[in-house]
Structures are given as C-alpha cells and as structure tokens.
C-alpha cells in the first residue's frame, strides 16, 4: 500500500513539473523572469507603493529650474515649501498645549469629523516650518542618495568581484588588496571627512563619493560566488566548447550569481538610506538648511516624549522606502533563480493529483 502511494507521489511530482514546464514553453529567459516577478505579490505591491511614493514625493514641492534669480517654477501639489515659515500653531489650537501639533485626522467618526488633512497634517517644527514639506524634501534627498549609492556600488562591485573571482592570480590579489584597502577605512570616517569638506556641495555629490566606497562587500560576495562557480562542470564544458572568457563570465557564470548580486544590492540600497541617517546623526551627512529624513530624526529624537510626531513621520517614510526596496529585491531573486519552483495553486495541485491517480488506475 505504502509503495503504491509512493508511486502515485512520483507520478504526481512529474505531473506538477509538467504543468510548470508547459507554462514556460517557447518563452525567452527574460520573459520567464518577468512572469515570475509579476507573480510575486509582495514585490508587485512594493513596486506600486514605491513608484506611487516617488511620484507623490517628487511632485509635492515646487521645482525651481534654471538660474536662481529668475527660476522657472513648476508648482507642486502641496501649498508650503520646505523653507516657508507659516505661523506656528500652539496653545488653544493644539491638544494638550503642545507646539506645532499635527492636524491630520485619519480616523473618521471617532471624534465627529471625517478624514481631514488640515493646514499642517504632520505638524510644524520649532520655527513653524510645515513638517509635511520638510518630510517630502527629506524623502527626495534620501531617495536620491539611495539610488546613486546603489547604482555606483552595484556596477563597481559586480565588475571587480567577477574579474577577481574568475581570473584569480595576480588580478585577484591586486583587486582584493584594493578591497582590503577600502574596507579598512570605516565608511563613517570617509563620510565624516567627505561631509566636512564637501557637505555644502549637496546630497548628490555626497552620495557619489559614498558610492565609490561602498562596493567592497558586494565585490567580495561576487568573488566568492565566482570562485565556486568557475570550478563547476558547466564552465569546463563551455571552455572546452571554445567559449571566450568574456562569454563564460557574462553568459554562464554571471546569470548564476545574479541572485546573490541582486539580494545584496537591495540590502546595500536600503543600507544606504541608513548610512545617510547615521552620518546625519553624527553631524556629517546632509547639513542644514537642506534636509534629509535622517537629519529630521536626529534633530527631533529628544522630542519623542512630548512631540512624538516629529519623530514618527520621517521614520515611517524611511521604513516604507526601505521595505519596498527589500521586497522588490526578494521578488527579483525568486524570479532570476532558474532552480526556483513556483508554488502551484490548489486547483493546479488537484489537477496533477487527479492525473496521477488516473494513471495509477490504468
């Protein structure tokens, strides 16, 4: 009886495989990856949330293009700029005598009113600046820093890691000593030196320089992956078949290492936001009068007991951004992994089982 069941199980497995294989028939690798990605629910939700957030954040404030005296102004949807100083609400306007309290009312019916934004949904800071505008500006800066660091680090880390891992020998020695050289220098030190010198040059420049120093971890990981993969049979096979080094690296090894790369790049990008936060906290990141989410948190961390909203809102934005990036990375990892099997839906499983049972009878 048990043996019979095991046979059914094997046929069932084969049928499930057949269902999965049928789906990918005649599709290119890119199409398969895209399909798998779209099917990853958390990743798709994250894509939607992240792009909505980016759109909302970047359209919120006025854009001033061109020269400073006579700029072309593209108006944003929010009435205040991050440098405007409307009147500070306090006393009778606020609950519990707090200063610059938030006016957002997200809970309908509870206090009689419906959902309302009010004049200052996220409250105001010490000198009356609208906190929503500040958070939007901060999010713009933090997103920019994140993308620049991620792009630079991903490119440098992948290229250097694959070269070192594939060619080994003196190329590996030189490149990995270079990695050692940079790893020895704590990022916070580089950040503080850069911040001291170039803090006034703006967030983008800061991010550029930080990116030049944050690829090392990724390159070590890629190298490790290459060291293992280059000893595998399929690499030998393609070398015997006459493939060039370039082809082996890009067509054979890199696709197998892409999961590792993507996962660590996403971690790196969410890490970049936190790095910016840390630098701002130490006073070497984005500096006033510009704002970043990290700077906002570190400015108001002591206000947590009295005015918690100054602490919550920038933190929530950081978390949303980093969460979305991480989930997208996870979706991409699953999508790229050629060995990854999709979980069949209940209906498909039933189909496979029915087929298996039928073959068992016959």
């Amino acid at each position: 009886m048990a043996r019979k069941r095991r046979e059914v199980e094997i046929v069932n497995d084969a049928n499930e495989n057949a269902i999965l294989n049928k789906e990918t028939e005649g599709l290119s690798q890119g199409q398969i990856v895209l399909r798998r990605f779209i099917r990853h629910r958390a990743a798709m939700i994250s894509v939607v949330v992240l792009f909505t957030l980016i759109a909302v954040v970047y359209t919120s404030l006025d854009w001033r293009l061109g020269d400073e005296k006579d700029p072309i102004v593209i108006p944003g949807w929010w009435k205040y700029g991050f440098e405007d100083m409307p009147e500070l609400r306090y006393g009778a306007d606020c609950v519990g005598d707090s200063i610059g309290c938030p006016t957002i009312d997200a809970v309908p019916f509870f206090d009689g009113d419906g959902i309302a934004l009010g004049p200052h949904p996220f409250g105001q800071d010490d000198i009356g600046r609208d906190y929503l505008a500040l958070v939007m500006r901060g999010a713009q800066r933090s997103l920019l820093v994140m993308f620049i660091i991620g792009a630079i680090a991903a490119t440098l880390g992948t290229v250097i890691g694959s070269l070192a891992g594939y060619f080994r020998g003196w190329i590996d020695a030189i490149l990995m000593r270079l990695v050692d050289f940079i790893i020895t220098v704590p990022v916070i030190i580089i950040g503080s030196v850069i911040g001291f010198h170039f803090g006034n040059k703006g967030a983008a420049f800061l991010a550029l320089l930080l990116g030049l120093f944050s690829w090392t971890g990724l390159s070590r990981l890629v190298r490790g992956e290459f060291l293992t993969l280059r000893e595998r049979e399929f690499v030998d096979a393609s070398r015997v078949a006459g493939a060039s080094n370039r082809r082996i690296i890009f067509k054979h090894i890199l696709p197998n290492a892409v999961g590792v790369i993507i996962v660590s790049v996403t971690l790196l990008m969410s890490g970049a936001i936190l790095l910016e936060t840390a630098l701002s906290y130490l006073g070497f990141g984005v500096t006033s009068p510009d704002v970043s989410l990290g700077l906002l948190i570190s400015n108001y961390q002591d206000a947590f007991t009295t005015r918690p909203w100054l602490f919550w809102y920038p933190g929530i934005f950081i978390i949303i951004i980093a969460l979305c990036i991480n989930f997208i990375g996870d979706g991409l990892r699953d999508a790229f992994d050629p060995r990854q099997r999709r979980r069949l839906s209940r209906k498909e499983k039933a189909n496979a089982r029915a087929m298996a049972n039928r073959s068992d009878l016959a």
Partner: protein
Amino acid sequence: MFSYILRRLGALVVILFGSSFLLYNLSAISTDPLGDLRTSTAENKEYLILALTRELRLDLPPPLRYFIWLRGVLGIFTGNANFGLTREQEPVIEAIAGAIPTTIRLVAVATIVAIVLGIALGITSALRQYSRFDYGMTFFAFLLFSLPIFWVAVLLKQYLAIDFNDFLVTAKISPPWIIFFSALVGLFWATIISGSRRRVLMVFSGVFVANSIFLSFISATEWLSYPRLGPITIFIFSIGIAYAVTYLSVGLSDRAALKSNLLLALIGVIIYFPIQSLLDSNRPRVGILILLAALLISAVSVSFIFARIDRGPVIRTSVITSVLIGALILVDQMMQAWRPYVESDDVNYRPVATIGQSTIWLTEVSFWVRVLDFAMHLVLPTLALTLISFAGYVRFSRGTLLDVLNQDYIRTARAKGLTERTVIMRHAFRNTMIPLTTIMVGDVAGIVGGAIITERVFAWQGMGTLFNKAINSFDLNLLMGVILFLSTLAILANLIADLLYSALDPRIRVGAGK
C-alpha cells in the same frame, strides 16, 4: 598554506601603511584644530595659538607629521610603541585599551544572539518556504533592515525601559495582555507547524492554553518580582535541552546519545546543590570554573559509558548539553541576586537601565549583583544591535539553505532513504554554513563600526565614544589610534574568512593562481 598566510600578513602591513598615510593626511587637511581659537575672544589668543601649534607640531606639513607619528607606532616591533598622546595628555594606547573591553562586551553578546537566533529562524523559514511563517519572517526581517538604529533605540528606551520598569513595580499581567501574548505565541507556533487545518488549530489552541496558564501562574506568584528557577525547573529544562540537542545533533534514534544526555540532566541537578554554597562564597569565579569542569568531565565520562562505538558524535552532543545546563545554573544564580539588586538605593526598582554600561556607584555588593548590573545595562543596547544584524542572518541563511536544498545531491540523499533530519542537518545545513561563515567573520568589523552609533545613543564609554570624541575635538592621534585598531581588525577578519572558506569548501583553492 603557511606561505600564503605570511604573504597576507605582509600585505596587511603594507595596506595599513597606505591607508593610515592617506587617512592621516585627509584628516589633517580637513580639520582645523585652531579654528576655535581663531574666532575666540580670549586676550592671550596669540599665545594660545602658538602653544597649540607647538604642541601638535602644526608648523610641519601633514606628511612630515605622519612620519613622526609612524616612527612612534613602528616602535611596536621593538617593544616600545608610542601612539602619541590625546588632547588630554593621556597616552592613546591606554585610552583605547580602556575602551576595548566595553565595546567587546557590547558587540560579542549582540553578535552571538543575532547569529544563533538568525540562523535558527532563517532555516525554519526556508524549510517552510512560502508558508505564513515564511512570509511573516520575511516581512519581519525586512522591517528590521529598514530601521535606523537610533530610531529603534529611542523606541526601546521608551517602551522597554521606562514602561517596563513601571510594569515591574506590580508585575501583575492583566487578563487582556495574557490573552494577547498567548495568542501571539500560539500564532507563532501555528504558522510553523504544517499540516491540515485541524492540526494547526489544535496546535494553536494547545499553545494558547498552555501559555495562558503559564502567564497567569507567573503573574499570580509575582515571579517577575521574585525570579527563581530552582532545582525542579532546572531539571525539567535540562531534560528538554537533552532531547532537543540530541534530536538536532544525532537524532533520537541514537539511544546511547539520548541516554547519556538524560543522565547529564540528572547529574546537573545533583551538582546544583553542592555548587550553591561555592557560588555564593567570596570566590564565585572558582565556583563557576568547578561547575563547568564538573559538567564537562561528566559529559565525557557518560559518553564513554554509554557509547561503545562511534563515540565522537555522542561526546559532542553531551558537551553541548552540559554547557547549556551549566548556563541554566548560572542564570538561576543571577536570578537569586535580583531582589538585592532591585532593592538597592541606586537602582530603586528601575532595573532596565537606559544609560551607561554599569551603575558606577554600586559598591559593596556581591559578585552576582554586579554581574546582574552589567547584564541589565546590556539589555537595551544589545537588543538594538541584535535586532539590526539579526535580520541579515535570517535572510542569508534562508537564501543559502534554499539554494542548497534545490541541489541534486539533496535529492540523492533523500532518494537513498535518509531521514529528513539527516538530510537537513548533515547534508544541507553544513553546506549552508560555508557562505554563512564568511559573512559572520566579515561582519565583526562592521558590527564594531555599528556600535559607534549604539554607544552614542546609550552613552557607553567604548571605541565609538573615543571615535566621536576624536573627530569632534580634532584629536588626530586618538583618531588614528582608533582607525588603526579598526583597520587591523577588519583585515584580520577578512584573512580569517578566506582561510575558513578554503578550509570548509575543498573545491576552493585559495592563493593558488595557476
């Protein structure tokens, strides 16, 4: 291999030379120690500037100053190293030596907790891929990734220190909280267990009821105010440990291992009674040593009694069990110090500390109260550091294990009829450990860096504080000392990671170029 290590160590010296030269000059150029004085309104301004210039040799260009500094540092080879003085005229080496233990205490505990918990949950998550538990764990890990550490620290201070200390005054858990916590724990286990809906429901209600009874018991007996394990609880826990370790390590079918582990649990309880007076005496360290030695010796001897052949795995299992039982007895000892600690004037019923690494003015207390004091100061910073680095281990071990589980040799192992435990623990988990080891070792330097912020938030006096002080007071000697220490640590960690990688994975030939 030996020549490879020698070459790497040679490279270490060269790299340290290069990076320290670069950083010394960068920092020297980008900071201006005289800045404060120039804008000051002191009457003897000129004199002060002159004095500082002479003291810091600011009349020399930075590269020259570097070589003066380097000559002192190179004295390390002749036995009289001179890392210079800090701005407060304290030798840098002493300042750093004073800070290292604090940082290590902070980092070591956090790292160990993060690794153990992270790997355990990551593996569970991978084995239950695409289950509710997996999704929950993934979400939790990503949430932790996305938290800035001092944001977490502020939350922890508020909710885990201030509010929890308030709660400890009465230590009464109200029924709604009992229901809430029990539901949470029940949900946790119900999502791990796979199977039919009926089984999941059974697990949930079972855990829920057991947990509710447990919490009500704790609340009713005011256990949180008067914590104590006692011999009976220790015995029960030890049996649990014996079963768990045996199951994970060699499987319950190995009767010899199971018997020796169970006997160990009994021995642990027997040792518990005589060791009490020794631990309470004025030489508690001797007591700890004797306790551990006794447990280890009995671990090895019971293995020899029960296992006739293939003793290695049995000894290994017993040793793990005995160490865990020893830890239980020590925890019980710390709990006995709880009342004197909480009731002392300086602590004043607020045991979870938010600031500093110890209660400095806590004098005239027993060894165990002091240990407890250290532990209570460690809670918040360790939790903050752990939460941050733990997520990485969860994700990484999950990812690696999934990769390994999809390999052909796993299918072969299953096909030849090995038990699932053997396949997972022996074939899959060991291969998962290879990339994990590299990550772990490489992480150490990074975590020390992360401690910089943690130390600042919780006002610890460690390497991070020194670093902040050095930057903010333009103290070049101190800054270089800290950097040199961190750099050496980072390079050594990398070297060890490489060696481990080649030792664990024979396919990798490290240092072989041709």
